[in-house]
């Protein structure tokens, strides 16, 4: 676990964020960068406030969250199942682990046009890209977790008479759990990024869709307000899954 940050380190982090804000304010002063390209902080934040208070973002937010939840659910079930099957023998690990790792290195976003043809402009294609991207860290970490359980634990359990089911539930699963959790956390985060990316490329609704249409209408400050919203959401998702991961680890010590 990461040691607690010192006050000084927190101060530096805060300082960097403030410096970015100040630079943003400075370069958008009259005579600086064109307001249509980069609006100054003040109107962006007032639009952000409007966005939060009027809840106009609600329908698009629901679409994105729905896509994300479905993608993560499919990737988790499929990734954990396949990972378990691959980890069953040293032979299947040797055959399929490099194969999966190789497929993982393919830039999956390139499949997005194909998914558009297959599943249409709506939520289907976003769920497909989110699932594809989240699947690999989940399956790879499941294999890594289950295949690398310390042999001494397995030997000890067998010497005490553990049957296959007991061995799996009481030894393999808890031993592999932290590694699997890391895969799930990565999957959750990159699925969200991939879905937003997909929505900005081509979509009917969602946060990404909203940002693109605002950009096309040259409503820069509203667009930036929505970007800030999406960024904060990514932070929140990261925070939630990291917290869940830490809790899950602690549960299994």
């Amino acid at each position, binding site marked *: 676990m990461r040691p607690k940050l010192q006050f000084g380190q927190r101060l530096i982090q805060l300082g960097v964020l403030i410096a970015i804000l100040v630079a943003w304010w400075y370069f958008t002063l009259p005579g600086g960068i064109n307001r249509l390209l980069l609006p100054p902080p003040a109107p962006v934040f007032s639009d952000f406030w409007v966005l939060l208070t009027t809840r106009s973002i609600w329908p698009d937010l629901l679409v994105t969250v729905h896509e994300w939840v479905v993608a993560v659910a499919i990737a988790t079930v499929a990734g954990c199942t396949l990972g378990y099957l691959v980890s069953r023998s040293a032979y299947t690990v040797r055959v399929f682990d490099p194969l999966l790792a190789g497929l993982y290195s393919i830039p999956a976003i390139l499949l997005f046009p194909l998914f558009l043809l297959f599943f249409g402009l709506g939520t289907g294609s976003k769920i497909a890209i989110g699932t594809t991207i989240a699947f690999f860290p989940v399956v790879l970490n499941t294999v890594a977790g289950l295949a690398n359980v310390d042999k*001494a634990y397995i*030997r000890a359990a067998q*010497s*005490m*008479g553990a049957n296959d089911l007991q061995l799996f539930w009481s*030894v393999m699963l*808890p031993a592999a759990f932290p590694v699997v959790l890391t895969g799930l956390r990565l999957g959750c985060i990159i699925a969200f990024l991939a879905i937003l990316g997909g929505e900005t490329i081509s979509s009917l609704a969602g946060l990404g869709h909203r940002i693109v249409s605002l950009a096309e209408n040259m409503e820069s400050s509203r667009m930036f307000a929505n970007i800030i919203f999406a960024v904060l959401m990514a932070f929140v998702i990261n925070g939630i899954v990291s917290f869940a991961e830490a809790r899950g680890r602690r549960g299994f*010590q």
Partner: protein
Amino acid sequence: MNRGDAVIKVEGVSQAFGVEGDPRRVVALESATLDIARGELLSLIGPSGCGKSTLLNIIGGLATPSTGRVTIEGQPVRGPSPQKVAYVFQENTLFPWRTVIDNVKLGMAFQGVAKAERDDRARQSLEAVGLVDFSDHYPAQLSGGMKQRVQLARALGLQTEILLMDEPFAALDEQTRMVLGEDLSVLLARTGKTIIFVTHSLVEAVFLADRVAVLTARPGKIKKIIHIDEPHPRKSAFMTSPKLSALRNELYELLHDEIRKTLIQPTEAGAGA
């Protein structure tokens, strides 16, 4: 105690790894024959790689011999027999995600002990090793010596007649292992179990065992069996006695050449003694 009937019979057991004719083939153990009496503590000692742990694993049913057979109470060993045999391993095999007492109880769950009995039995065996106050700690919070005592408690909780111990104190410092050895002698004298104890330590072998089986360098054969005629439990007075020193020296004489054979550089011989 030495005159009990033979509980464990090891008959012509050999273990080789690799295919016959392959130059990389390793014969770890060659035609070991040995009877272990009920209630006896037998130490296996020998140079590294002589197959002491292999022999222990074959007796415990965790490995299958290339030739020969092992019987426990007349029944051939064909896999782990958790009702009869409990293990204490050299490496820490406590599950880090479970508390001390839950580790002990999990062993019983694997063995098939009824749920209602587990808690009492776990507490008793932790009491026996003096760690009942640490029941709710996690293994990571314990020292190396404490972890090994918990492993011993887990094995005792299984209430088997036979206990196999594979260098249980190897990872500990000498002072800790001497004190643990004294505790173990007292504890084991009380339980009356049949025990096979693999060790690298000459003193440990003499201090704990009724008989010490000395193995040769690879391929491991049983070179000689030494009787340690001293009542249990053994106290620290025995540790410092001339009798123990004499027996230790006898063991060293027997092992000296064997250890030398396993060393690439003969000048380093004796450094490990």
